[in-house]
């Protein structure tokens, strides 16, 4: 692999960039791999990457039905934070956030992690109490957050209106090392690094069946032929139900549309991510200058990657109220993604009833920020059979009533 650097770019410039090779190879699939990962989104690629990096398992194929990073990895609002209330969530999201800090250097691919800070606004007394509780929990979890005053919020986000007539800002939960990253680059960087370790990233390869013998997985059928494996990782977000059915089990998952939008680009005006959960909206500004805006998910099952416009209206209304200056900006583009929601809105990283088959799904609206932590834990789970990062996120928790409910802190969406 050609190492990326400013020097390499300059050197290539002299020959009009004709010397750059493929970022990742395009191999024909082998008949057998030690591990097959289904789904070349961020989570699938990260799982493969850490299988190689942490456990030396590199005879790995990552199968992708479409193009890598083409699902929710490339459709989200790129927010990274770990200010979660419950221990298991804080652990995996903070692991992810910490890995994001060094990801560009680790992958030799600039994923533009920007620890610009994340504020979650408290706009009711209930939220104030919820975020104070989270701040206490975070302190013991090793997650650096603090509850800040309205004045401090205004200082950090000058364009905010803190004395809105309906929901004045009463404070905020501030995570200074939260931020954003370039979503596509995360998938591309992992794909390049996996390819460099000799793994096969195989695009346009749809899994059509899961094969097993005596309750143990033996391989998959694909649009490019059968592929054997010892271990199978299913990391396909909204399509988990379909894959699980092939593997002979069912999931506590429902797929719904989540929408986002961006404004036209403007010069820098907000250097942090702001989430306003009372009014249901959040906003950050991309490096290109677009205001990147998200809101709540639709409430009904949907696979169309289109949502309902009234959710866009609600979100924009909330943000115009919170940031009056955006009223004269224009919405450039809106889009939807299909997110997989579990019964407690927390993910599943787990063994399955089929031996050798592991599943990573249910990230709902919060998957992007977890990618490296999820991959790290999933790799450990697949390599060793257990991982402290994933233990609480097992599939059997629903049967036991052992939920990981993050909505308790003031109804926070992910």
């Amino acid at each position: 692999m050609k190492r990326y650097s400013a020097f390499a770019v300059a050197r290539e410039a002299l020959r009009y960039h004709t010397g750059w090779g493929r970022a990742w190879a395009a191999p024909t699939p082998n008949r057998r791999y030690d591990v097959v990962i289904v789904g070349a989104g961020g989570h699938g690629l990260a799982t493969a990457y850490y299988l190689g990096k942490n456990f030396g398992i590199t005879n790995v194929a990552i199968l992708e039905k479409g193009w890598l990073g083409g699902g929710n990895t490339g459709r989200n609002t790129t927010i990274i934070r770990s200010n979660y209330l419950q221990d298991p969530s804080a652990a995996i999201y903070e692991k992810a956030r910490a890995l994001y800090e060094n990801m560009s250097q680790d992958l030799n691919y600039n994923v533009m992690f920007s620890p610009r800070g994340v504020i979650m606004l408290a706009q009711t007394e209930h939220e104030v109490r919820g975020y104070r509780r989270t701040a206490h929990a975070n302190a013991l979890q090793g997650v650096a957050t603090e509850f800040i005053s309205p004045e401090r919020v205004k200082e950090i986000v000058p364009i905010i209106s803190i004395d809105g007539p309906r929901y004045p800002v009463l404070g905020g939960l501030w995570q200074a090392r939260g931020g954003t990253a370039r979503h596509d680059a995360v998938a591309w960087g992992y794909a390049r690094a996996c390819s460099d370790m000799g793994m096969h990233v195989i695009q346009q390869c749809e899994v059509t069946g899961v094969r097993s013998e005596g309750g143990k997985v033996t391989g998959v059928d694909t649009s490019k032929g059968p592929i054997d494996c010892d271990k199978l990782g299913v990391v396909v977000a909204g399509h988990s139900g379909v894959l699980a059915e092939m593997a002979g089990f069912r999931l506590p998952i429902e797929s719904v549309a989540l929408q986002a939008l961006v404004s036209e680009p403007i010069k820098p005006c907000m250097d942090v991510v702001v989430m306003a959960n009372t009014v249901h909206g959040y906003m950050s500004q991309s490096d290109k200058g677009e205001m990147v805006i998200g809101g709540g998910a639709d409430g009904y099952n949907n696979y169309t990657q289109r949502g309902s416009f009234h959710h866009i209206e609600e979100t924009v209304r909330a943000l115009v109220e919170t940031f009056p200056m955006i009223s004269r900006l224009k919405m450039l583009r809106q889009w939807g993604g299909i997110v997989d929601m579990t019964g407690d809105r927390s993910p599943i990283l787990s063994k399955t009833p089929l031996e050798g088959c592991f599943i990573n799904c249910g990230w709902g609206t919060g998957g992007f920020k977890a990618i490296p932590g999820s991959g790290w834990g999933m790799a450990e789970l697949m390599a060793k059979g257990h991982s402290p990062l994933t233990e609480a996120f097992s599939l059997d928790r629903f049967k036991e009533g052992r939920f990981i409910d993050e909505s308790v802190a003031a109804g926070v969406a992910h």
Partner: protein
Amino acid sequence: MSTRIASHGRLIDRNTTVSFTFNGKSFIGHAGDTLASALMANDQMMIGRSFKYHRPRGLVASGAEEPNALVGLGTGSRFEPNQRATTTELFDGLSARSQNHWPSLEHDIGAINSLFARFLPAGFYYKTFMYPRSFWKSVYEPFIRQSAGLGQVPTERDADTYEHFYAFTDVLVIGGGVAGLQAALTAGRAGAKVLLMEQSAHWGGRAPVDGGTIDGAPVEEFVEQAVSELEAMPNVTLRNRCMGAGIYDHGYALGYERLTDHGPAQPGPRHRLWRIRAKQIVTATGAIERPLAFAGNDVPGVMLASAMRDYVVNYGVTPGQRVIVATNNDDAYRTAITLHEAGVQVLRILDARNSGGGPLMSVARELGIRIDCGRAIGKVKGGKRVTGVSVCAQEGQGGALEDVACDAVAMSGGWSPVVHLWSHCGGKLTWDDAHAMFRPDPQRPPTGADGLGYVTAAGAANGALALDAVLEDATVAASAAARAAGFKSKSVAPPQGAASPEAPLEPVWLMPRQAETPLRMKSWLDYQNDVKVSDVQLAAREGYESVEHTKRYTTLGMATDQGKLSNINGLATLADALQAEIPQVGTTTFRPPYTPISMGAIAGEARGEVFQPIRKTPMHDWHEAHGAEWEPVGHWRRPYAYRRPGESTHDAVMREVKNTREAVGMLDASTLGKILVKGPDAGRFLDMMYTNMMSTLKPGKCRYGLMCSENGFLIDDGVVARIDDDTWLCHTTTGGADRIHAHMEEWLQTEWWDWQVYTANLTEQYAQIAVVGPMARTVLETLGGMDLSKESLGFMEWRDGALGGIPVRVYRISFSGELSYEIAVPASLGQALWDKIADVGAAYRIMPYGTECLHILRAEKGFIMIGDETDGTVIPQDLGLHWAISKKKEDFLGKRAQERSHMTDPDRWKLVGLETTDGSTLPDGAYAVAEGVNPNGQRNVQGRVTSTYHSPTLGRGIAMGLVLHGPDRMGELLEFPGTDGKTYTAKITDPVFYDKDGEKQNV
């Protein structure tokens, strides 16, 4: 130079002048001008700077597809960034500024990027800026952000208003060109209710510019007649300046009407968002001309041939005096002919086709215009303005055959139907090889609720480019749409369009075909985002082969024009690099809106005070007048405390608590939910809804009840009163009223639908006043009308009666541990009763109290609060509420769930009281630490604070919390690290801090 010409100008009124400023400089234009045409008339061809390289940029197009000419419009509270000059109608006093440069448009430091363009290819930032690590956030990113971003930031609150509008129609026609007009006529004549929308101020689209005849008369006559016929139809609504912004599922469409953008002094809302439900939609959105990719195709003065024609014909302005036309099709000849007629010198037509064009070529040749076939532009010369071109052979690498001095270049690469709206909701496309374009695939339209198509493309938007074909296609499309909407159209022959026939185009995706790398690095595909042919080729080489990868890697098509000019050229370039066919490469997804729409319009009227409805109790205004500090609870406002002059909020709360404990307080409890449950099966139903047994409650009695979800968690609590044999009244929390009512209905309607029970949410029908404290009975007895003695109205009983002449229902219940009555009255009498109680109570020191006092009173007594002690993960057993869980019932919601292993785990945290050793108040939400850390390195914890207050009654901090094995550890000390750096030590106690034996309420 660009200038106004004496002829043409069908849309301007040369007798009316309009003054405006651009970058502070004053200019004059005419009524009817766009900002773009007026700037061109004033020889202001350079209008902006590009996103990445800050290259000088001028007008390329004349409409919504314009990528370059974006300006900041207006000032102060009416400033708007990124406004397209081509769609901005000129008005007197208009003030515009160019964007993305410093210090000025003419001299931009950022243009230095252009010198290093070779070092800044697509995606270079993924390969660089990684070291040292901390520099990304502190150095590189701020630099990138500052040089990127286009428009300036609005700084003031928007002075304008916006509105939403609902519309229902049989047939929505989007686009008011000849296709749209003919479609509207067809559907309208069939009797369908028609809504016709046109994004610009003018009807007819570009047909009047392109010429030809309809039924033997000039196109303009057809347009005039069509509009007047449509205006006369009662079933047709016409709206211009109204863009079809998006098409959504089940026939939903958005219209974006710009009401006052062309005259900001006019009263009324600025934009109106139309939320339309249409049975059928006809997209008559026309087509957009494609640029040609040649070196220097971004220099100001290089324009789309059709746009140049528009400027001449519509506005009487020309971008230059000596023009070169480059084309691969016949349409550009119309521009050459028009320019020639307008007195502009056309130096060459460079036709990339070896065989040239059809009859239009002959016309041009007869006019004396030199036509070179098989020729291409090798390179455009000039920086801020075109100064000339070097001509080369199309089949070649760009070796110059001659250099020609000129001041403008018209280019045409063929036409692409505007398929955006067709595609928004899933309509698929098919590749039309003859015209080298994607057009709607009629076999795969967007489908609606009935599974059938509800969008039909018409005219050029459907790939019918010639005038006769446009009219015929529009007629067929609209007949089909009307029929699908239930209207049969009479078969009338469409009007006959006649325009010059055209020779086939020849696809040209790069000019010259084998252009060498340095030329490809100057051949723009996406103007605004600075994506060139070489960038797409680099992406393909590096394996970003999917069209989505290429788009994202190069940012092709992601600018504010969303690739209207660049998508097809980029796609073709990618296909060529991959040696694949264009349809195999596919397109990216088209997403709404068609062009950007204002956030203000999306938000609509709901801002400020009317952002959300406020629910007010009957006594709301009284509270307001008596110093209430409001706390939002759901959509209600409740008084948090009543501050007296000179008092802090904390002081007020302390006073209210002391007064209530010592004398008497009154609370507006009207927001509590009140749900009537009635019917022969009501008791059985409530036994399922509550953990307690409600069916055995005697009429006249009250019982405190708990409600769990089917998942076992506590969701609400409140006092239930049995009114008569088959009637119960269930009180819920303030936030719970609507939710619990819906919860009851859900179970009644979907699970136990054969049970005879009715529910009614009476929350707003009654005002409720709590009179609380040792003097409560005295106050009410003074008011008179009911016997409220201990004997007559015992604890947890209710009676109907009258107090002070007002009919009331009095509940003797207590959420404070004091002698307490809650009095319900019809809402309209709430204020009257409140006033009477306040009047007679004055002698007994009665004071109103707010929610914070309420919280402290209940916490002193160890009463739980939904939302504090519960958070959606707590079951009644955690809170020591076993007594409220019936052991006799076989079933209730949550019972099965509470049998699961984690719910019966003895290690669940349980409710206790917490007393700090030093009397201080524990911090809200603090956790009690345990020894060591867990496998993830997190500090182990063994409990947490759920409620914490300073108790003025006890003069110390009190708290409740959930603690591991808490009830078995009375007297043990726990440590709670605060976020303030201090660690608080608290003793585990009984959660009842005050009047453990309940003597105060049993009087």
